[in-house]
């Protein structure tokens, strides 16, 4: 039977408490607690238990054998024997939170000093366990935070690379503060100086191509006013190099509690795609020109062939008839036969001409009520790539109220497109910054509306002016001389008149008027 140890003196107790306080790892603290109770409070055996799910779990155990104290099993379930034979059961509680129990076993009832020592230790153990648990929790949270931060870094890096590969930048626009935060890639696309990743809306507008600025600002303002999605395609002039790039942008408001204070969005550099589209378009235009030239050539050849046959017959028969008549004794019957053939061959030639006319005659125009401004806008979308490629500045002045005319959509578009293409062609020789296409609509009065298409080109020579609407007259190298003649006839079908004048200070202005309808 081991001799009872003496109750610990104050020095030993303080020393032990200091040691226990320093232990912040619960794994080390728990067995240390049980050991301290065996050593200082003289228990033969000490269990630290925790109640969980109706079971009592042993978290640490110490036994004393003489003066030696050691831990043995831990983390097993305490049996009824363990629970019922304990001499002292000390509840551990700190700030109202249970921290388990200490079960102390003595061979003989312990002295009051021992019991008091046990209570001191138990009170301290609750605090130490609470501290250790807090510490462990803090460590865990720190670890999770580090982990989250690492993941964030990785995903940010991936995002950056993705943006770089796709030439797509992203941005965040704080509406009230009027600040736009740009991603690295967006800064690169805009050509912002290094370290400059936050710009105002005005600065953003200044990067935009002057010809696109107004339209983009209107689109953005309209969307922001009602919290709608922004979708724009526009050009920018890079802030560093001035290089023109094509961008496709999209922005969506971030709604929080029924309101929004910011927009997030992306801008993708679509210059390469756009250039490819233009190249295809240019190739198509070339192909159309070639095929038109071919068609005209083939048409001429086939007309020549078809008409020359009866002409050949007519000329030969006429020559023959003259000879029959000029004989000393005129052969009248032969002459008559030749003349009859001449009549039928002449009719044959006429038939060929009228069937050709049927082939090329345009269908009757389909008149309907048209929104003139919409018609002009639609025509301009058709020639947009041409305008951009030839760097022609477009100035459009449409009346604020809608103006309607009675006309054939296809024919009027044909006229507008022809005049716009002519205007673009006319400016080929002037410097790029001096190429301006003005399209204006003005209401002369209640009855009529006037459309003007003015270029800033070299103008039409005075001697060419009177012939400009003549068929088969052209000043273009590969023109057919049909465009303006057809335009004038279309406008006349619409009860209007197509005119041309020299523009001031340079260029040409074509104008036509049309009757208005309510």
């Amino acid at each position, binding site marked *: 039977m081991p001799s009872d140890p003496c109750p610990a003196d104050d020095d030993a107790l303080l020393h032990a408490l200091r040691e226990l306080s320093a232990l912040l790892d619960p794994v080390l603290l728990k067995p240390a607690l049980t050991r301290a109770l065996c050593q200082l409070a003289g228990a033969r055996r000490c269990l630290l238990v925790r109640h969980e799910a109706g079971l009592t779990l042993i978290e640490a155990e110490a036994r004393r054998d003489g003066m030696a104290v050691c831990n043995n099993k831990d983390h097993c379930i305490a049996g009824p024997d363990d629970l019922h034979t304990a001499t002292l059961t000390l509840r551990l509680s700190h700030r109202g939170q249970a921290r388990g129990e200490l079960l102390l076993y003595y061979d003989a009832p312990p002295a009051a000093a021992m019991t008091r020592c046990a209570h001191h230790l138990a009170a301290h153990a609750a605090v130490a366990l609470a501290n250790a648990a807090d510490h462990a929790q803090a460590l865990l949270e720190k670890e999770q935070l580090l982990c989250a931060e690492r993941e964030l870094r990785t995903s940010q890096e991936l995002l950056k690379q993705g943006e770089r590969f796709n030439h797509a930048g992203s941005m965040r626009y704080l509406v009230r503060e009027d600040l736009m935060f740009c991603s690295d890639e967006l800064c690169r696309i805009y050509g912002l100086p290094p370290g400059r990743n936050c710009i105002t809306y005005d600065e953003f507008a200044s990067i935009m191509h002057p010809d696109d600025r107004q339209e983009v600002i209107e689109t953005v303002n309209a969307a922001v006013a009602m919290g709608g999605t922004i979708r724009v395609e526009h050009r920018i002039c890079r802030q560093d190099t001035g290089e023109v790039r094509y961008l496709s942008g999209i922005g969506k408001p971030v709604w929080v509690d029924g309101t929004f204070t910011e927009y997030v969005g992306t801008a993708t550099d679509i210059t390469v795609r756009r250039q490819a589209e233009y190249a295809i378009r240019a190739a198509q235009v070339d192909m159309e020109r070639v095929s038109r030239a071919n068609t005209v050539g083939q048409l001429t050849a086939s007309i*020549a062939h078809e008409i020359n046959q009866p002409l050949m*017959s*007519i000329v030969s*028969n006429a*020559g023959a008839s003259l*000879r029959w008549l000029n004989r000393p004794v005129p052969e009248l019957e032969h002459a008559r036969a030749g003349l009859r*053939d001449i009549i039928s061959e002449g009719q044959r030639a006429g038939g060929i001409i009228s069937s050709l006319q049927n082939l090329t005659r345009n269908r009757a125009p389909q008149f309907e009520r048209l929104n003139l401004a919409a018609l002009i806008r639609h025509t301009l979308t058709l020639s947009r790539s041409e305008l951009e490629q030839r760097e022609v500045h477009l100035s459009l002045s449409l009346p604020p109220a809608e103006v309607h005319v009675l006309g054939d959509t296809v024919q009027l578009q044909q006229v507008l497109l022809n005049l716009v293409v002519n205007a673009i062609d006319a400016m080929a020789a002037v410097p790029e910054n001096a190429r301006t296409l003005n399209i204006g609509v003005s209401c002369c009065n209640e009855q009529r509306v006037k459309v003007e298409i003015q270029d800033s080109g070299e103008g039409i020579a005075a001697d060419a002016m009177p012939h400009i609407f003549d068929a088969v007259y052209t000043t273009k190298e590969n023109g057919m001389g049909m465009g303006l003649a057809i335009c004038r006839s279309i406008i006349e079908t619409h009860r209007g008149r197509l005119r041309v004048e020299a523009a001031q200070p340079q260029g040409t202005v074509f104008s036509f008027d049309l009757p208005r309808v309510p």
Partner: protein
Amino acid sequence: MMSEGETTPPSHRPIAVIDDDLGVRAALCNLLDSAGHRHCSFDGGEDFLTSTCLPVAACAIVDLNLPEMSGFELAEQLRSLRPDLPVLFISAQVTPLQRQRATAMGMALLVKPVDADTLLVLLTSTLLYGPP
């Protein structure tokens, strides 16, 4: 055959007209008739090559744009069958390439509508002196 050609005066030997257009063919025959020439006519080169007219013809007026065998192909064949036979090409539509080829073959090419007097003068001189 050659001996026959030499004994028969040019005006009595027929002029062959090969053109697929009936109106043209009839008118040319009428014109030749009125000028006192005999003639035979065909709407394709194949018919002429198998006809009795081939050995006796004094000259051939050949349309370039024939439906089967082209005028040039016909002339090539005639070159071996009747090397002495002068050929006058006529065509409603002449490309620079066709004109070059006719010149290279040493044959006249007239564009329809051919002036009646021009054709007859050219024919007479060809019959007298050979191709221009």
